[in-house]
């Protein structure tokens, strides 16, 4: 089962970069895909990768990250994006960041229908 967690901007706006990143990583390690309203700054993104690398172990293999509206024309993120655009009506999807645990994104790439399944369940 795929699980999603939406983090609205208001929930992280007041956090320090360090705390923002711990929060996101905690959720990813819990095997959930995160839909974050807003974007990380380049510095935050570098820090996120550093922290991800230090938390890799047998169970957690890292993350995949993409900002919606960027270079995502043909990849898995686009699939998620399209489905989510329908799902998350009322949220401005173009300023969103999607972060997924690497193992789950690998599954999605292997079997993209899973996304469709997921969005059906959510409706």
């Amino acid at each position, binding site marked *: 089962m795929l699980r999603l967690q939406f983090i609205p901007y208001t929930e992280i706006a007041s956090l320090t970069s360090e705390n923002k990143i711990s929060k996101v990583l905690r959720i990813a390690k819990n095997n959930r895909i995160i839909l974050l309203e807003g974007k990380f*700054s*380049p*510095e935050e*993104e*570098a820090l996120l*990768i*550093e922290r*991800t*690398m*230090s938390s*890799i172990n*047998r169970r957690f*293999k*890292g*993350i*995949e*990250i*993409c*900002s919606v509206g*960027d*270079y*995502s*024309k*043909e*990849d898995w993120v686009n699939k998620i994006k399209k489905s989510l655009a329908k799902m998350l009506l009322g949220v401005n999807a173009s300023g969103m960041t999607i972060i997924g645990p*690497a*193992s789950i994104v690998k599954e999605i790439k292997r079997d993209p229908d899973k996304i469709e399944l997921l969005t059906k369940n959510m409706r």
Partner: protein
Amino acid sequence: MDKASKNTMGFFDYLKNILSIFQFKKTIRLGLYGPVNAGKSSLANRISLDWLGEEMSAVSKIPHETREIKVKEKVRINSNGKELDFNLIDTPGIATKIDFEDFLKYKMSKKEAKRRAKEATQGVIEAIKWLENVDCVLVVLDSTENPYDQVNVTIIGNLAARDIPVLIVANKVDLRRANVKRVESAFPQYKVIGVSALKGKNMEGFYKELFDIVR
């Protein structure tokens, strides 16, 4: 103009000349970034071979062969009658995921695979830290792969925010599946140059573009 100020002018001109010579001779720290297996070490070797006659990094089809930063100092490159000195910095590249099970395909013990994965994570952290120590960056991509799948938007964004010049190298053009156009359309705001680090294809064009962006 009185004599004194004329002298000062002359002196400043003289100083400026000296400074400009130093500036010209300044060594440019050139970082090689990009995804795992794109050919960063192969390109570093090609450049080093072209100008120093020796290689600098180990190359392998096994991912994360480069797990620490390798530096080759004072590589003097000539292009179009200009001469510049570079320090070549071959990095492990930046990844957001590392799976020790990927190593098991290469006849490696589980223990060895785990050790490599651990070193690889450290290598990525080091590569990120070194972003602070470069003047100019080559983002090496495998032109046979989908550029949208490659997690380099992050570094490129990071560099752009700090005004560090970037040249995107679409490597492996010797392969039939290579598609430089696709890389170009993925990064329309950047200079993209197609090369084969392995075969040494289009290196002249590469040096020309390199000199263009460090200018």
